[in-house]
């Protein structure tokens, strides 16, 4: 076999694998006996049943007839939930942070910013995606990281099935830096950021009458002003949040999601009154920067108590770009519970809340009839350390519970095996 043909055979086999795996999936699945966290008005159903048909949730409830021919999955003693949604990461945009050719989160081109979309750069074959899937993350909102402009660009939502069509929504939010980093990008002062932002908004709206097809930033900002997608704004300091609330008053349809918001608790009722949501890190409690002086692990609970819709995510455990920690959302939600947030609110913060924030709650984020069947069966409390999904459905398709990490583990778990490591496949 020639080298090229061998390569093509392997390549095609790799492409075929997920397709053939999916082909055996039965039409109807009935998950029975588990503690069903619906994430909807139906609340928690002990010993409930979830029926999945053709990629959609057909029914959820206690006494539901199981359709003939359904494959029955016994979830007794376990939890059944919607797939987790990672509200912020660079999953699929970064493979190795120090390897430039694997980075697709930043557009350094100063001639465009808000209109830069990460979606075309998504690598569904990233080895990091399956690690998130194994932890129950079925959808991830993946964000650009700011380069030369306060606008980092346009975020996407991906499924974690690794499929070629894993981009679920190519335009799900626009990210902007409005705190210390925003000031740095604006020339060195917060005041300059607000001048720049007002100008950008005015210029975009002025361009509406005669849109220039190359003015992708203008189009992106007009979409923000029309409320077509939310503006995710990195702000930490309470005073910066107040500035943002004041700015947003001029644009009644503008949907704002605060990102970071370490001092959000100090202005929680104002945030709630402005109808803004927030993505927060449940561990952040140190003044790494002057703008996070008031950081506390109580932030999530205090914001939720004030009526702010929150999502919880690892925001920057170690570095600015963060593909690896997308899998930790359940842990981060659990830590918010340890700090006083109630369990249901914490679970919402990694499922239905991000779905609402990014406008996909009609199809994802909870177990309700008609929704896309991203469904997890867990062996224990999903927010507890050590619990894991024993079944992961993405759009009704059962996913393999494997990753490059599990393969490395299998290869090295028995060092005494005489078979050479390279042959242990």
């Amino acid at each position, binding site marked *: 076999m020639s080298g090229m043909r061998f390569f093509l055979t392997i390549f095609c086999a790799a492409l075929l694998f997920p397709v053939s795996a999916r082909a055996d999936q039965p039409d109807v699945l009935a998950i029975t006996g588990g503690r069903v966290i619906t994430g909807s008005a139906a609340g928690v159903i002990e010993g409930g049943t979830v029926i999945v048909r053709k990629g959609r949730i057909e029914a959820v409830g206690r006494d539901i007839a199981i359709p003939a021919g359904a494959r029955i999955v016994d979830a007794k003693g376990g939890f059944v939930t919607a797939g987790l949604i990672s509200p912020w990461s660079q999953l699929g945009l970064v493979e190795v942070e120090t390897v430039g050719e694997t980075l697709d989160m930043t557009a350094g081109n100063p001639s465009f910013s808000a209109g830069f979309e990460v979606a075309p750069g998504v690598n569904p074959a990233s080895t990091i995606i399956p690690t998130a899937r194994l932890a129950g993350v079925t959808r991830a909102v993946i964000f650009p990281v700011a380069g030369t402009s306060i606008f980092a660009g346009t975020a996407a939502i991906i499924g974690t099935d690794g499929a070629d069509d894993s981009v679920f929504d190519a335009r799900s939010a626009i990210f902007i830096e409005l705190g210390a980093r925003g000031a740095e990008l604006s020339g060195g002062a917060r005041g300059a950021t607000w001048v720049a932002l007002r100008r950008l908004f005015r210029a975009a709206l002025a361009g509406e009458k005669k849109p220039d097809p190359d003015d992708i930033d203008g189009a992106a900002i007009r979409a923000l002003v029309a409320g077509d997608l939310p503006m995710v704004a990195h702000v930490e300091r309470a005073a910066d949040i107040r500035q943002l609330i004041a700015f947003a008053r001029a644009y009644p349809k503008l949907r704002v999601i605060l990102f970071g918001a370490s001092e959000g608790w100090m202005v929680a009722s104002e945030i709630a009154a402005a109808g803004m949501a927030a993505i927060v890190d449940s*561990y952040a409690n140190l003044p790494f*920067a002057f703008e996070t002086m008031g950081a506390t692990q109580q932030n999530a609970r205090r914001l939720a108590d004030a009526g702010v819709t929150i999502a919880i995510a690892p925001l920057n455990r170690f570095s600015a770009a963060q593909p690896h920690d997308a899998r930790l959302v359940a842990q981060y939600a659990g830590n918010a*519970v340890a700090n006083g947030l109630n369990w249901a609110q914490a679970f919402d913060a990694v499922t239905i809340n991000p779905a609402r924030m990014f406008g996909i709650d009609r199809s994802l984020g909870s177990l309700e009839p008609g929704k896309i069947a991203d469904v997890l069966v867990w062996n224990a409390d999903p927010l507890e350390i050590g619990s894991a999904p024993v079944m992961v459905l993405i759009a009704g398709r059962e996913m393999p519970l494997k990753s490059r990490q599990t393969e490395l583990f299998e290869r090295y778990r028995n060092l005494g095996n005489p078979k050479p490591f390279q042959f242990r496949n």
Partner: protein
Amino acid sequence: MTVRFAACLAMLMMVFRALPADAGTPRPDITAADVLIRNATVLDGLGGEHQAFDVLLSGGKVAAIGRAVPAPAGAVVIDGTGKWITPGIIDVHSHMGNGAVPEVFGMESVGEFSGTVKAEVWAENGIVVQDPAFGRAAAGGVTTVQILPGSGNLFGGRSVVLKVVPARTVQDMRFDGAADGLKMACGEIPTYSYNPNPHVYGTLGKAPATRAGNFAIYREMWTKAQGYANAVKEAKAKGTKPPERNLQLETLADVLDGSIRVHMHCHRADEMAMVMEMAKTFGYRVTAFHHAIEAYKIADILKSEGVCAAMWSDWWGYNMESYDGIPQNMGLVEQAGGCAMIHSDHSTSIQHLNQEAAKAWSSAVNSGIPVTKGQAWRWLSSNPAKALGIEDRTGSLAPGLNADVVLWDKDPFSIYARAEKVFVDGNLTFDRDNAELRWVSDFELGQTGAGDEK
């Protein structure tokens, strides 16, 4: 509630007394009373888990551990029902004080980026005692830390072991008698630290430009150190003039004679194996590899060579040398009978090392590697104590050891658990029920959020 009130009252009665033998200079004693915690689940730090045990702290030491320990007169008795007691957490790899918060210009002292060989640098000289991170770590049950220089240098300098206690000077925190450490580093970071054009090797024409170049410099330095040590020895024997004092080579010579322990940042299995071989040829030992992402690939060799591995539960993939990290790393080293340790390297994760251990423990158990919670707690206590040469002082709840103890409100392997009371030498360094004992660093004092529940 009344017990809690009595305990608070006793602790509020600030009594000053002479310090236990370990401490260098006096520091305020927060609770002079004996403390008896009753009927808790105890992880003894040596591998054991005990139900319905009592632990008595007296005179700054663990005085008794067992069933139905009698309360000495005047002891503060705490009901531990439903709660857990463990030895205090020892983090063998921290940069608190050196990478002080806020992370802004003027505060950085982790990496002395002025050369590849900086063995003469001492981490303790860069400590900011008022780093807010120390108080946060205390609230996470951390009682002892090793502060290491950064990994930008091949020889980064001397580490320092500190007690996590409120203090005014570094001397007030120093864990006297702990073995001195030398930080060394393998791999990518020392190479690109001197060739900063984003990860393109050799852009400044400076050595090392490659991982292989790192080894050339290690060998060169160990050769010089051998010569220096021999010259010193010879001069001493003959009564002749010793060579001019060289602080770099002096540190390395101390490694060669075993009085300084090597803590080496090394991710890759192949590199760790070569370092151990090199160490043998020069006659020194590596005490521990840190960030040992691939320890699982050579767990048997680490065991047979008696080298510890300091690891994260699940941080990986941030560069090529960390690409093969797996969450079972800790469990596989444990399974091989090796010395596994959890380390933080970061001022946020140091606050929840119990959760990090729990993740590593459950990754092992869920993969069919039998590890008990008792065994896993050694990753946080007696194993790092051994690596730091302080296992006869702290790291377990054996009677006579320092009363470095954490009372957890529930099983510390649960995400929902939090440290309730933390003792160092029998003194409370944190008490969740007592707002008076919240750490407010000088930096935070008078600023937003000072004194808040963090």
